[in-house]
C-alpha cells in the first residue's frame, strides 16, 4: 500500500490522502455486501419518503375537509343568541408543516384538534398514536428514523475496522514501517468514509426535495422551507460524521476489530434507544407534570373567584357596582350598553388570565423537561439532534404549543366578537337577543398559519453546540488515536 501511495503521490502529484481515499472507495465498490447495504439504505430512504408524503397528504386533506365542514356547521347555525353560538364554538385543526414528511416528531403523540368554546380553554385532543398500534412503538419508518438510527449504524460498520482490520491483516504495521504518513492515512480514510456517508445524506436530501416537487406540486418551496432545511441537513451531517469519527477513533485505539465493533454497537444502542428513554424518565421525575385531574382542579379552583353566570357571586355584584359607578347610573337598565355583554366580556377576560397562567405553567414544565432531556446531548448526540430535527420539521413541542396558543387566541376572538355583539345590540338583559345568521359569516374560522422558521431556530444554539461539541470531540479523539496508531 505504501509503495502505491508514494508512487502515486510522486508520479501524478496526487495527495497521499486522496490515494488512500481512492483505495478505500475501490474496496467498498468491489465489496458486493457494501453495495447491497447502500442499496438497502437508499431503498429505506425512498420508502420513508413515500410513507411521509402519503401520510402528510392524507392528514392535510382530512384536516382541510374538517375545517371546511366545521365552517359549514358554524355558519349553518341560523339566527341565534351570540353567546349561545359561542357555546357551540368552533374546532381548530392543527396545521402540518411540509417537513413533517421528514420527521413526524411528536405529532402523533400530541392532539390534532382543539375545541374552542365559551368560558374554557380545552386541552388538545385526538392523539393519532392511539390508532397506530403497538408495533409503531417499536419503530416508525421515517426519514428521521433512517438518518438518526440506520445511518449511524452504517457509519459504525464502515469505520470500525478501518484501523483494527488493517492491523489484524498486517497491512497497517507494514504501511507505517514503510514510512506512510499516519496523517495521510487518517485523512484518506476519513475522506472516503465521510464522502460515503455525506453522499447518502445528499441522496436523502435530494430525494426529499424531488419527492416534494414531484408528488406535492401544490406546495411551493419557499424561503422558510430552505431556512428549515439549512438547520436540518447540517445537523444530520454533524451527527453522522461524528459517528464516523468515533468509529475511526475506536478502531485505532481498540485491541481488535471485534472489540471495536462491540464497543461502537454498545454506544449506538445507548445513544439510539437507552439514552432517550432514561433521559425522558429522569426529566419527568425531576419536573413532574400534573395529572389531568389535578390540572383541571387547579383551573376550577382558580375559576371559583370568577362569577361565571352566577349573578349572586360577590365578584359579580362588585363588578356590577363598579360599572354602575363608572357610567354614573344606578340601574343596569340605564346603562348605554348591554350589561349582559359587559359581564360576559369581564368574565371571559378574567378567565383568559387564569388559562394563561395554568396552561403557561404546564407549557413551561414541558419545556423544562425537554431542556433537561437534551442536556445529555453532549454525551449522547441523538438527544441534541432530535430537538433540532423536530424543530426544523415543525413537529416539536414548541410548534405544538404555538398551535395551542393561536387556537386559544382565535377562541378569544370568537368570545370577544360575541360579547361585543351583545353589548351593542343585546339590550338590558341580552338573553332574548337573537343575532342574524350573517354574524356567523362575519366571525372567521380558525385559519392556521404555520409558524415561520424563526420559531424553529429559536433556542436551538445549545443543541447545535452540544451536537457540534460531541462531534468535534469524536474527531479530535480520532486524530489523536490515529496519529500514533497501535501497531499491534
Amino acid at each position, binding site marked *: 500500500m505504501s509503495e502505491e501511495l508514494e508512487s502515486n503521490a510522486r508520479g501524478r502529484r496526487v495527495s497521499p490522502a486522496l490515494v488512500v481515499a481512492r483505495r478505500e472507495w475501490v474496496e467498498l465498490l468491489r465489496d458486493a455486501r457494501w453495495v447491497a447495504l447502500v442499496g438497502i439504505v437508499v431503498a429505506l430512504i425512498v420508502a420513508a419518503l413515500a410513507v411521509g408524503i402519503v401520510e402528510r397528504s392524507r392528514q392535510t386533506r382530512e384536516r382541510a375537509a374538517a375545517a371546511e365542514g366545521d365552517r359549514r*356547521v358554524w355558519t349553518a347555525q341560523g339566527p341565534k343568541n351570540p353567546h349561545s353560538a359561542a357555546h357551540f364554538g368552533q374546532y381548530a385543526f392543527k396545521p402540518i408543516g411540509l417537513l413533517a414528511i421528514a420527521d413526524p416528531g411528536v405529532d402523533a403523540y400530541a392532539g390534532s384538534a382543539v375545541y374552542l368554546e365559551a368560558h374554557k380553554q380545552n386541552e388538545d385532543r385526538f*392523539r393519532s398514536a392511539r*390508532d397506530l398500534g403497538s408495533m409503531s412503538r417499536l419503530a416508525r419508518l421515517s426519514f428521521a428514523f433512517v438518518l438518526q438510527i440506520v445511518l449511524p449504524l452504517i457509519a459504525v460498520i464502515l469505520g470500525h475496522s478501518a484501523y483494527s482490520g488493517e492491523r489484524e491483516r498486517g497491512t497497517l504495521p507494514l504501511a507505517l514501517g514503510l514510512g506512510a504518513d499516519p496523517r495521510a492515512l487518517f485523512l484518506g480514510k476519513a475522506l472516503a468514509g465521510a464522502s460515503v456517508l455525506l453522499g447518502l445524506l445528499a441522496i436523502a436530501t435530494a430525494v426529499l426535495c424531488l419527492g416534494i416537487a414531484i408528488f406535492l406540486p401544490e406546495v411551493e418551496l419557499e424561503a422558510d422551507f430552505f431556512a428549515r432545511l439549512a438547520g436540518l441537513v447540517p445537523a444530520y451531517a454533524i451527527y453522522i460524521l461524528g459517528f464516523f469519527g468515533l468509529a475511526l477513533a475506536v478502531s485505532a485505539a481498540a485491541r481488535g476489530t471485534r472489540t471495536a465493533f462491540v464497543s461502537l454497537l454498545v454506544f449506538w444502542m445507548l445513544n439510539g434507544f437507552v439514552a432517550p428513554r432514561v433521559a425522558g424518565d429522569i426529566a419527568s421525575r425531576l419536573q413532574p407534570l400534573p395529572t389531568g385531574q389535578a390540572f383541571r382542579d387547579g383551573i376550577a379552583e382558580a375559576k371559583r373567584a370568577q362569577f361565571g353566570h352566577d349573578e349572586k357571586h360577590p365578584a359579580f355584584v362588585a363588578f356590577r357596582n363598579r360599572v354602575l359607578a363608572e357610567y354614573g347610573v344606578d340601574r343596569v337598565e340605564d346603562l348605554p350598553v348591554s350589561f349582559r355583554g359587559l359581564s360576559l366580556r369581564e368574565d371571559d377576560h378574567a378567565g383568559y388570565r387564569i388559562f394563561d397562567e395554568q396552561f403557561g405553567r404546564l407549557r413551561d414544565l414541558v419545556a423544562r423537561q425537554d431542556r433537561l432531556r437534551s442536556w445529555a446531548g453532549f454525551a449522547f448526540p441523538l438527544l441534541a439532534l432530535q430537538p433540532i430535527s423536530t424543530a426544523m420539521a415543525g413537529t416539536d413541542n414548541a410548534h405544538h404549543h404555538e398551535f395551542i396558543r393561536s387556537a386559544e387566541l382565535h377562541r378569544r376572538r370568537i368570545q370577544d366578537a360575541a360579547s361585543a355583539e351583545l353589548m351593542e345590540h343585546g339590550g338590558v338583559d341580552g338573553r332574548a337577543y337573537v343575532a342574524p345568521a350573517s354574524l356567523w359569516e362575519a366571525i372567521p374560522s380558525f385559519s392556521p398559519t404555520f409558524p415561520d422558521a424563526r420559531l424553529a431556530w429559536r433556542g436551538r444554539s445549545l443543541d447545535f453546540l452540544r451536537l457540534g461539541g460531541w462531534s468535534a470531540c469524536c474527531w479530535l479523539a480520532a486524530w489523536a488515536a490515529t496519529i500514533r496508531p497501535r501497531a499491534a
Partner: protein
Amino acid sequence: MFEIDAHDPSNPSPRRRRASVLATSAACEWRSLRFDLGWWSALAASALCVAYAVSVGRARVEQRSAAVAQARADETDRLARLTDLLRKIERGEAPAPDAPYRDPRNAAYVGRGQGAAAVALEDLPTAPLASGLSDLYPQVIKVASGPKDGFLFTDEIANPTRLLGGEFDFAFVVVFLFPAILIALGHDVLSAEREQGTLAMTLAASASLTVVLVGKLIVRLGGVVVVVLGTLVAGLAASGFDFARGTPALLIAAAAVVIYAAFWTSLILLVNSFGLSSAMNATSLAVAWPALILVAPAAISAWAEVVHPAPARSLMILAVRSAAVDVERERAAAEDRFRDEHAPRSDSFAGPIADARTRETLAVTIAADRRADEILAEQEEQARRRRGLAERLAFALPPALLHDALEEIAGNGRTRWDDFLERIDRFHGEWKAFFFEPASRGAALTTADYARFPRFPQDPASARIPDRGLLRIAGELFAVALLSLLCFLPAHLRLRRPTPG
C-alpha cells in the same frame, strides 16, 4: 475434550450419551466463563437494566394509581355535594338553583357532566412489565350521557416527547437490549473455536457439534436469562408484587423470555453454522438485530398505515356537531338551551324538573350521541382492519410478537383495552338509559335515585388477562417457538458437516 467412546458398553444409549456431552460441554464452558470479566459484565448490565426497568414500571403504576385515586375522590366529592344540595332542596332548606345545569334534580344535566362516573382500568400485578397502551389512553375515563367522543378522546396530560421516546420498561429491555447482549456473548460460539484452533479437537471427538454448542450456549446465554428473570422476580418482590394474583402471569412472562432467548440462540447458531469469522458473525447478527427489531416492524407498520389509513377522527367531530345543528334548527333548541343555561328560573321551569326546553336539549344530545356511535363503530372497524393487517404481517417477526405478548401479560395490551372499551360502551348505554328516561319524562332525580346511579361493574374477569389475550399470547409464543425451530433445524443440519477451518 469430549472423548466419549461410542463402543463402550457402559454408554448404553445415544440419548444418555447426548446428555453426557451436553453436561460436559456446559461444565467446560462454565469453567472458562467464571473468570471471564466480559461475561460477568454482561450479566451485571442485564441485572441493572431489568432492575431499572422494574423501578420505572413501578413508578408508572404508582402514578397511575394516584391519578385514579384523585379522580375517584373528585367523583365522591361531586356526588356528595350534589346529594347534599338535593337533600336540602327536598327538605325546603335551600332554594333550587336558578340554572338547570346546577340543579341536582335535573337528570339531563346531572347525567351529562356533574354526575359523570370515573372509570379506570385496574392495573394487573404484572403492569410494571410493559406500559403498552396505558400511556396513550386516559388514566380515568369520565363516562357521561353525552356522545362518546366527549370522554373517550380526552387525553391524559403527558409530554409528547416522552411518549415518542417510549418507556424504559421490562418489555423494552427484553425486546431490544436482551438480544443484543445474547449476540455479544454468543456470536463467536463456534467461530472462536475455529480461530483459536480448538475446533478440530472438538470435531475429533464423536460428540455431536450441535450438542456441544448447545451446551456452551446454555451456560453462556442461559446465565443471562437466569439473571434477567431472577432480577425481575427480585425487583417485583421488592416493590410489593402480589404473588398470589400475579404468579401465573409472571410464569407466562418467564416462558416468553425463555422462548425469545431460544429464538436468538437458534439464530446465533445458524449464523455460526456458516463457518464465517467471528467478525463476520458479529456483523451479520448486528445487521439482523435492527432488521428484525426496527426496520421490519417499521416497514410493516408503514405498509398497514398506507393500506388502511388511520380513521379520520375529525369526521366524527363534524358528524356530532352537524347532528347538534340539525336538531337545533329543527326545534330551535339552541336558543332554548342558552336560556336554560343563562336565564334565571322562569315559570316554565318551575313545574316538573325538566321542561320542554330541557327535553329539546336532550334531543340534541341523543341525536349527536347516535351519530357519534355510528361513526365510532365504523372507525373502530377501520382501526381493527389496520391492526389486523399489521399483526398478520408481523407473524414472522419474533420481536414484534414478543413485544405484543409482554404488553398482554402486563394487562396493557390491545385485547384487555378493547375489552375495557367494550365494557365502557355497555356501561355508557346503561348510564344513558338511567338518565334519559327521567329526563324525557320531566321527572326529578331524588336522593334515592342518586343511590341507584349505575356503577361500572367490577367484573372479576377484568382483574386478569382476558381469555382472548391468553389465546393471543399462546399463539404469539408458539409462533416464536416455531421460528426458533426453523432457525435451529438448518443450523443443526449444517453443523453435522462442519468445516474445521
